[in-house]
């Protein structure tokens, strides 16, 4: 829809992540309702909301880990399948068995598997990249340690190093600061800020309101639906926070139950 002008306008670059009318359900019960969200600039983006609000679910739905019941998610204007090598993921630490027989270097090398493809083993180039990633998070001298022998902060940094080894343009992190001591949190935040300075988008599901206001450029408040999104200072207002944290989700929960049971709410 160009208006006047001297020639065809160049199309606007596609947003980095585009959630379009995203609805996610567990079984038949919707837990995220009709989220519309565009993130079009590299920044530190926080997804904030109460427990059980569906923040992690939103992230997982974007990555295709949980099926979408409605809507779609695009990365750089494409479905995720076409641009996987540009998207890095740091899942929650609880999903992993830390007694697994791998050491730190093994885990970080897993970040290089995506570019290696099937059947090929990591070589010297991958090892160099892994070492550099470990350096960046400050774990270079723990490369041979079995991962169960690490502290919580160190484990989180190993996950971060694995994501760095993916050399992605977008990083999605799920509660990276949960259960991590303050010093490690600051260390992790420093790495994330470096990534943003390099022009990458870093999306973080975060649970702590206090640090959210300090750390993130832009923020989305989520409580089963998108309450508000935009620059952190503008969004984190008392009114918005009240709508998110003391919310009206009982309507959504009852409705979700009714949908799951294929009936009407009473």
């Amino acid at each position, binding site marked *: 829809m160009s208006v006047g002008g001297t020639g065809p306008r160049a199309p606007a670059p596609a947003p980095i992540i585009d959630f379009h009318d995203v609805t996610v359900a567990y079984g038949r019960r919707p837990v995220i309702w009709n989220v519309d969200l565009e993130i079009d600039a590299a920044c530190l983006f926080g997804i904030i909301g109460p427990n059980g609000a569906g923040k992690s679910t939103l992230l*997982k739905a974007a*990555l*295709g*880990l949980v099926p979408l019941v409605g809507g779609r998610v695009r990365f750089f204007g494409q479905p995720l*399948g076409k641009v*996987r090598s540009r*998207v890095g*993921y740091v*899942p929650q630490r609880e*999903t*992993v*068995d830390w007694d*697994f*027989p*791998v*050491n730190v270097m*093994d*885990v970080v090398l*897993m970040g290089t*598997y*995506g570019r290696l493809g*099937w*059947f090929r*083993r*990591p070589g010297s180039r991958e090892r160099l990249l892994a070492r550099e990633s470990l350096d960046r998070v400050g774990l270079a001298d723990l490369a041979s340690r*079995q991962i169960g*022998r*690490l*502290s919580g*902060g*160190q484990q989180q*940094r190993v996950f971060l190093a*694995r994501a760095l080894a*993916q050399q992605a343009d977008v990083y*999605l992190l799920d509660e990276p600061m949960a259960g991590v*001591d303050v*010093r*490690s949190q600051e*260390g992790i935040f420093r790495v994330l800020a470096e990534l943003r300075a390099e022009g990458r988008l870093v999306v973080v599901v975060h649970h702590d309101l206090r640090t959210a206001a300090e750390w993130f450029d832009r923020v989305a408040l989520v409580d089963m639906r998108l309450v508000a999104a935009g620059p952190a200072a503008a969004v984190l207002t008392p009114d918005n926070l009240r709508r998110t944290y003391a919310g009206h989700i009982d309507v959504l929960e009852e409705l979700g139950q009714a949908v799951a049971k294929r009936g009407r709410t009473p």
Partner: protein
Amino acid sequence: MMPFDIAYNTLVVAAGVAAVGFAAGVVGGLCVLRKRALVGDAAAHATLVGVACAFLITGRRDLPMLLVGALLSAFAGLGVLVLLRRFTRTRDDAATAIVIGVSFGLGIALVSGIPAWGYPDSAGLEQFLLGHTAAITARDALLLTGVACGALAIVALICKEAALVAFDAAFAAAAGWPVALIDYLLVALVATMVVVGLPAVGAVLVTALVVIPPTAARFWTDRVGPMLLLGGAIGLVAALAGVVVSAARPGLATGPLVVLAAAVVFLVSFFAAPSRGWIARRMQQARLSRTWNLAADSSPGPASGGPDC
């Protein structure tokens, strides 16, 4: 038969059973890492139905056909397990137990009925319950070896993908790996190992061949590759021990002997492995508490945990 023939036969059978033990230990390692140790149990108990049906269809005790039947019914049992998990409210462990119990019941009903229904040549189906290496011919053993080697080749190819999925399936899926496909492949491998282990160890105990060697191997190493190889070696030793004892006492069922051998190795590993064995841990703890006590005597309490982040 010339003594040379007997020796050749025994050697080939021993080699076949050893190959099966090795492959089962390796594949079982991947399974244990993926926290699916008892999938093999469901597959194993379901094989009996297939063995009986194959016998009913072909009318002969022809090992390759019986094993094909066993493989098909193992897959059927696992398929039922997947359906139960997806379409019913029944919990996962109850679903596994249901498949184990009902499929084995059907198998027993068939295996017990076949002799009563007047089929000649059906004695010996019962050997698939507890294993009987003396009944394996050299030709059968070659088939078993071939299948075992095929499975090992597949494991060598996809080892890194399987370890990735076992360690962090969410990360793997997000990175685009077909986690479900890799899982199905692993389950298919386990089912195959269970089936080739049937002649030697029997349906009731073959799950031990897939579970005990890798769990024993875990005590000795903290890396995936060595754990798989060592698990294979332990499986090999256990299988061979069963063959040897069974050759000395032909009347005994082989299965329990193989399991016992594996269990002995497990016990030794549990206690004597360096750094992860029970003895080593107790010594470490004793040393640690001595150090703390000394330190407490001489200076303020040390920081907890490992080196600071």
